[in-house]
């Protein structure tokens, strides 16, 4: 049983917690399986697309991003992605100038809207990409978000 099945079977982390407690599983074993380290280590848009299984990505106006143009603080930048591409089952958020490009990778089964809002950290002013997988292909939209010095500065 891999971790994803364990999560589903247990309806939560009960099974894993038990396995951890019993010493059957080490934390690394459990998490490495379901966390795409290679993708989260990438340092460019193209490499991330590749690591997520795409041969490339084309720009699409059917992906809508709601973000501020200027973020008062880079520690918390709200990002909403909504896809109008049919069969959208995956939405990822990428930040070009962060030390690691990939921020989040959401899997949205049938019945779940192709829509997600979260908040990301931005090291500096950068392009933010919404990457969408639809029908086996990758599409993206981009938006530049300016990170400013807030408060009293310095």
């Amino acid at each position, binding site marked *: 049983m891999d971790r994803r099945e364990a999560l589903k079977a247990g309806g939560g982390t009960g099974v894993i917690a038990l396995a951890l407690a019993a010493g059957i599983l080490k*934390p690394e074993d459990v*998490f490495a399986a379901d966390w795409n380290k290679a993708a989260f280590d990438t340092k460019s848009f193209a490499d991330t697309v590749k690591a997520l299984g795409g041969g490339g990505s084309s720009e699409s106006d059917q992906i809508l991003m709601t973000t501020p143009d200027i973020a008062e603080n880079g520690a918390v930048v709200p990002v909403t992605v909504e896809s109008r591409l049919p069969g959208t089952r995956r939405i990822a958020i990428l930040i070009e100038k962060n030390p690691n490009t990939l921020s989040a990778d959401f*899997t949205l089964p049938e019945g*779940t809207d192709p829509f*997600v809002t979260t*908040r*990301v950290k931005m090291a500096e002013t950068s392009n933010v990409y919404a990457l969408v997988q639809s029908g086996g292909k990758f599409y993206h939209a981009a938006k530049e978000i300016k990170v400013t010095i807030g408060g009293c500065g310095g």
Partner: protein
Amino acid sequence: MPDPMRIRANMAGDKVEVRVLMAHEMETGLRKDASGKPVPAHFIQNVSVDHDGKTVLSAQWGTSISKNPFLHFRFKGGKPGDKIKITWVDNKGETRSDEATIAAAS
């Protein structure tokens, strides 16, 4: 023991609108503490949301999700009174699960 999440789940038309806040430091591993020592990375890697035995959203996160993460999404097939269960697991193996009851349209 990590602190509980705050989950709001309510009907909006025929969909369930879910908003959740998770209590987590989301350390990047790049920050230094007051004495100049690097603080090790500590962040949520996996999130899953289950309803009626089915996963309605799963996510993998990196270190650049903000501290005390917020998530908002919608799914079909739930009704008032149903339970949803949200679970996260972080890179140190800490985990937390919380349940919420779906409320009628607010």
